[in-house]
């Protein structure tokens, strides 16, 4: 892609609220024949996955199938032992990949807003960092808790702070490792809606690893099922947003995925 059109796309990204899919043809990242071995154990093998910028991808699989390893490769926490992982062009003022863990992993000795500022290390500092962190806390609905200790928050609120920390640096890719797994069912649905709302507004590429098929289908544009280290199913979810939970369409896709997982 020529540089001129790339800049054109960048300025397009900066303008608010164009309809999705916003960026046809631009690549966020691609695995090409990627594999990962730990000693003799092959965790991932021959993964080919090309993901467009702005796409919401869900990765499902039974535990131990390698889906978390895929995410760690994406976030640079591990390196592939075979094949390659390439990224699209880096945009100025954006961090490339942010990782949201299964646990909130907030610093207990830093106030809520200082925890969000961690997401701006190397991007902004001082008063600017504080203002951006406060704005992001507003997005997740916790502006009034900015100066409290994390230990005073509930599990769902902590995970919202972690989401704010991940997004405050405006990442191009957000990698989520079952971040809602430990929440109760209602808080979880609330968080899913929050995540979808912010994703629609900020247009990052989201990669959500989950074991919850309903969650994957409700949120994702595309669902990838991993089994025994390979991609077993790669499925688009062509359902309009806002999606209605429990609709026939979503249930049909969910059934298809479950069939593949247990069939």
């Amino acid at each position, binding site marked *: 892609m020529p540089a001129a059109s790339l800049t054109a796309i960048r300025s397009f990204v900066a303008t608010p609220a164009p309809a999705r899919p916003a960026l046809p043809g631009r690549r966020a990242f691609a695995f090409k024949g990627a594999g990962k071995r730990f000693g003799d154990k092959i965790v991932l093998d021959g993964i080919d996955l090309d993901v467009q910028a702005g796409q919401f991808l869900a990765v499902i699989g039974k535990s131990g199938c390698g889906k978390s390893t895929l995410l760690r490769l994406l*976030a640079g*926490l591990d390196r592939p032992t075979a094949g390659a992982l390439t990224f699209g062009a880096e945009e100025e003022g954006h*961090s490339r990949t*942010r*990782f949201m*863990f299964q*646990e909130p*992993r907030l*610093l*207990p*000795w*830093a106030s809520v807003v200082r925890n969000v500022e*961690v*997401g701006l*290390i*190397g991007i902004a500092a001082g008063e600017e960092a504080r203002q951006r962190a406060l704005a992001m806390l507003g997005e997740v609905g916790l502006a009034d808790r900015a100066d409290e*200790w*994390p*230990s*005073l928050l509930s599990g769902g609120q902590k995970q919202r702070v972690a989401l704010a*920390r991940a997004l405050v640096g405006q990442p191009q890719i957000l990698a989520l490792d079952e971040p809602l797994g430990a929440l109760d069912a209602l808080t979880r649905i609330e968080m899913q809606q929050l995540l979808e709302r912010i994703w629609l507004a900020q247009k990052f590429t989201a990669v959500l690893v989950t074991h919850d098929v309903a969650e994957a289908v409700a949120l994702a544009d595309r669902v990838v099922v991993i089994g025994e280290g390979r991609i077993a199913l790669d499925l688009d979810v062509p359902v309009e947003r806002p999606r209605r939970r429990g609709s026939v369409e979503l249930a049909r896709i969910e059934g298809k995925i479950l069939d593949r997982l247990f069939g």
Partner: protein
Amino acid sequence: MSLATRLALGRNFIGWLLPALVIAGWELASRVGIMPANVLPAPSAVAEAFWRLTLSGELVRNIGVSTARALAGFAIGGSIGFALGLANGLSTLSRGLTDTTLQMIRNIPHLALIPLVILWFGIDEEAKLFLVALGVFFPIYVNTLLGIQSVDPQLVEMGRVYGMDRRALFLRVILPGALPSIFVGLRYALGIMWLTLIVAETISASSGLGYMAMQAREFLLIDVVVLSILIYALLGKLADSLARLLERLSLGWHPAFQNG
């Protein structure tokens, strides 16, 4: 005055209730003659000794000398212990190199070195400083090391993923995470500090509280002996209170410090 402050004052007061009762009972026992004055003088006699020595300036001078010794020894031993604790917590090479040796030395009671220390330094200041520094070193070292080793590795990984360099990782994740354990070491070390100083001053000194007590023993001034012991107790309590205050100020985030 709000109810909360009144309750807090009440809680502070309640700790002093028992010592006050003991002193009252002790005074009574002395007055009615159950407790002979050559075994334990009455609190009023001790208070008199306190006043006498304060007027002569002897008490203030000796407390000053002892406190200076204690703090100097603490500063030396504490900073070496803290530095080595940090080094061994952060670097496996440093730990591999020194930890075994330190653990061996740790098992020698430092007061057992007194004969050797007297031979080396005589009864000069160095002898006291050396013993206090050595006594203070180990609790600080062990707890600093333990604190750093027990920092949540998930938080360290988070810090790395979010782009913290080594300096930021140390200042924002590792050091605050190790702080509760470091404070445990600090408070323990303060106890050892006074203990070591008392013993060292009792055995070999020409000034200080321990020396004052030994001199008083020579002249059978039992009220001064008791006074020195009480002052040690108060100084120990003072040091501990200061450490607790510092703890409360810097560990405000810790759930254990949020309700009191």
